[in-house]
């Protein structure tokens, strides 16, 4: 009895279950006395066991090592499968090109072999023994482990496994090899390239949960046609909005959501409804158009200095514009896909929704090629959110018109001609001959836009028709309504800005024009809607009136009409 207690203590101290077996034998006095001798003493006990190293055993013993942190407990396994991982075979095995038939040479193999020998290229053999193990525990839903062979185990010392056999003797089996098993992740992970991207954006992206979501959706999109993109984009938007709602992490999302609430009643509703409906239609159409346009665009525009200065670049044209680095910062931001901080984002919010949308879609496709989908999508979603923004917060729609007219195939030349005709007739001859319709659309539409500025109260059919249908659908009601409204506005040199950053005053315009010749675009850029608090429509009209009053000199620089004052 006393002995037994001591043995149990012994067991607890060592935690060796084999001892328990062993000592039970001793106590119960089973028939192994020949094998073991037990020496009793007051405070210690010694037992002797025979050690056997069995010969000719067909079983090879191996060690399966798990990290303690993985908390692997073999007793919980109900079922396990283990096989060699043969995925490296094709690397080591010779790639067998098709024998015979076309393209084969007589004696090619021998020649290849001779060549390899000559250069001393030694290809390692594919040894099945050294291949890693794949261990699957508990079926499909269970864990997976990969076991890599550890080298150098049997070089200088041998490991033996001592097990207790039935007769109480120890049997020692040599360990053949050692495999380190690591669990394999079942969740999706980023690839190395994606991880690098995300790392670069880690300071800007706040909502980390969306990273995998976007990646998954990006994968889906890549495999689908253009048409689907719009829908997915819509879905993405909704998802993102939902997520934004759940997490409310991203400042910008809040911003966007609120700004969408702020939009005018009519506009807002229109926008929302149309935006959602249009998302499928618009992006679809736009997508196709854009692809063609991009290619057109490449050969279209010369990258002259100053060409793009006042140009409000449509988001579709990102490829070319971002490549040319004369863009202004905001445009550059638009063109730039990768890191877009929150500040930049809020700035770009000012841009027209149409352009936003186009940018998204355009970017989407362009970015597919670039592979920089994530940042774009983040921004795209935001912009889609902002599509609910009111028109009033946009920049002059002239910019949009001009740009969109620039880059959209669906220009309506006849109408434009009509517009220009009227402009030409009402204009004095200071303007050089109106370029033909077939000319670069830039000059056409800019001129038309400038016309509008000059006139200040032309019928709105021109701007609306000048804009390509798909893009400007939303805008159509608004320009018509707002420009109709703007005419009776008091022609005052001063606007009534709510924020007083920049006032659209005659003085301001005069200052700019004295400093250097500017196109209408440039001027509009100076008086950004967010700063002046005016709607784009209002800005346009007020600016037009100011210009009429100032009556600046006109100079054609690079085929663009520049205004300037000399004083």
């Amino acid at each position, binding site marked *: 009895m006393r002995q037994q207690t001591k*043995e149990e203590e012994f067991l607890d101290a060592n935690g060796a279950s084999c001892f328990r077996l062993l000592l039970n034998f001793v106590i119960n006095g089973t028939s192994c006395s020949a094998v073991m001798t037990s020496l009793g003493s007051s405070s210690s006990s*010694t037992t002797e*066991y025979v050690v056997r*190293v069995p010969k000719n055993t067909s079983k090879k013993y191996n060690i*399966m090592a798990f990290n303690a942190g993985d908390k692997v407990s073999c007793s919980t396994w109900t079922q*396990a*499968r283990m096989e060699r991982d043969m995925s490296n075979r094709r690397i080591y095995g010779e790639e067998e090109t098709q024998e015979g038939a076309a393209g084969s040479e007589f004696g090619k193999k021998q020649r290849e072999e001779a060549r390899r020998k000559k250069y001393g290229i030694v290809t390692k053999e594919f040894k099945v023994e050294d291949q890693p193990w794949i261990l699957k525990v508990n079926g499909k839903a269970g864990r997976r482990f990969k076991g890599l062979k550890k080298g150098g185990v049997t070089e200088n010392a041998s490991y033996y496994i001592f097990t207790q056999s039935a007769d109480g003797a120890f049997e020692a089996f040599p360990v053949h090899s050692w495999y380190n098993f690591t669990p394999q992740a079942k969740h999706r992970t980023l690839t190395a390239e994606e991880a690098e991207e995300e790392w670069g954006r880690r300071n800007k992206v706040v909502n980390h949960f969306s990273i995998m979501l976007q990646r998954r959706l990006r994968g889906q999109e890549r495999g689908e046609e253009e048409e689907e993109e719009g829908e997915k984009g819509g879905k993405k938007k909704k998802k993102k909005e939902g997520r934004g709602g759940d997490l409310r992490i991203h400042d910008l999302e809040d911003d966007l959501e609120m700004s969408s609430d702020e939009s005018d009643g009519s506009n807002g509703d229109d926008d929302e409804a149309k935006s959602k409906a249009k998302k499928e239609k618009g992006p679809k159409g736009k997508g196709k158009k854009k692809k063609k346009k991009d290619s057109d665009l490449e050969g279209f525009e010369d990258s002259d200095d100053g060409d793009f200065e006042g140009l409000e670049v449509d988001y579709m044209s990102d490829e070319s514009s971002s490549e040319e680095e004369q863009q202004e910062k905001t445009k550059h931001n638009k063109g730039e896909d990768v890191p877009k901080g929150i500040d930049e984002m809020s700035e770009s919010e000012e841009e027209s929704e149409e352009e936003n949308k186009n940018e998204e879609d355009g970017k989407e496709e362009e970015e597919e090629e670039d592979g920089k989908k994530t940042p774009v999508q983040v921004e795209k979603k935001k912009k889609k959110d902002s599509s609910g923004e009111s028109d009033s917060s946009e920049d002059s729609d002239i910019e949009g018109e001009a740009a969109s007219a620039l880059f959209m195939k669906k220009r309506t030349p006849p109408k434009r001609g009509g517009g220009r005709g009227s402009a030409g007739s009402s204009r004095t001859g200071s303007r050089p001959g109106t370029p033909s319709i077939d000319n670069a659309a830039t000059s056409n539409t800019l001129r038309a836009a400038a016309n509008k500025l000059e006139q200040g109260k032309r019928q709105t059919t021109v701007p609306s028709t000048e804009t390509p249908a798909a893009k400007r659908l939303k805008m159509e009601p608004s320009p018509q309504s707002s420009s109709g409204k703007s005419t009776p506005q008091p022609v005052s040199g001063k606007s009534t800005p709510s924020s007083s950053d920049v006032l659209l005053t005659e003085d301001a315009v005069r200052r700019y024009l004295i400093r250097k010749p500017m196109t209408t675009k440039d001027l509009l850029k100076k008086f950004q809607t967010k700063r002046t608090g005016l709607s784009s429509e209002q800005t346009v009209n007020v600016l037009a009136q100011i210009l009429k009053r100032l009556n600046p000199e006109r100079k054609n620089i690079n085929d663009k009409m520049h205004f300037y004052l000399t004083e």
Partner: protein
Amino acid sequence: MSDKGDVDLTGAKQNTGVWLVKVPKYLSQQWAKATGRGEVGKLRICKNQGKAEVSFTLNEELTTLDTVGQKSSMVRAPREHPFTLQTVGGQTLAVFTENSSGQSDAETGGSGTGPDKIALEGMVVQRAECRPAVSENYMRLKKLQIEELSKPLRFSQQLDKAVTTNYKPVANHAYNLDYEKKKKEEGKRARADKQQVLDMLFSAFEKHQYYNIKDLVDITKQPVIYLKEILRDIGIYNVKGTHKNTWELKPEYRHYQNEEKSD
């Protein structure tokens, strides 16, 4: 017939505990020499007030070493080896066994084709290192080992006499004689009938698309000029961007998809 890859989990279920013992090389060599049932020695486990002492004693007959050289009789393997016990912590170690495929008799397949049976034998509960008890004997053994290991794998040896047995001057080498005889037998290559040659060529081009002129000469056993004439008719000479200049059939003669060719 068990499915290949299924792991027999009986060992894990029973939670069989095993020891993992690191054993010096010389000892494992001695153990390999064991006879009979494989008894190699005795393991003594001493429990002294909570601390366990384990030691292994090598059987007498296994202490003789087969070392090369003169010192074999003097040095013997030490007999006493205390074990140093260690914990397993930090790793979970399991032991699994693999049945070599050639010997699993449950399968009907021939050797090498039967699947391996994998079984989990148990978990490691104790790690130990088998150390020899330091003794004069052991030191001598170690010295021997070090001497052996420090010998370089290659060594240069000076010869007393120059080697003259390899190459002797010969009127004509045996190889050359054989070669000439072979050539004589073959004789000059005769021009065979053109149609026959064409047949041979076509069948050759069925197998491969590109051929070197030398290989074609070998295959058809025709004089080179004659062969070239024929080839000029039906084939094109191809620089192909690689060094070798190869001949291939003209496109109208080719029909490689189904490995047939049209004439």
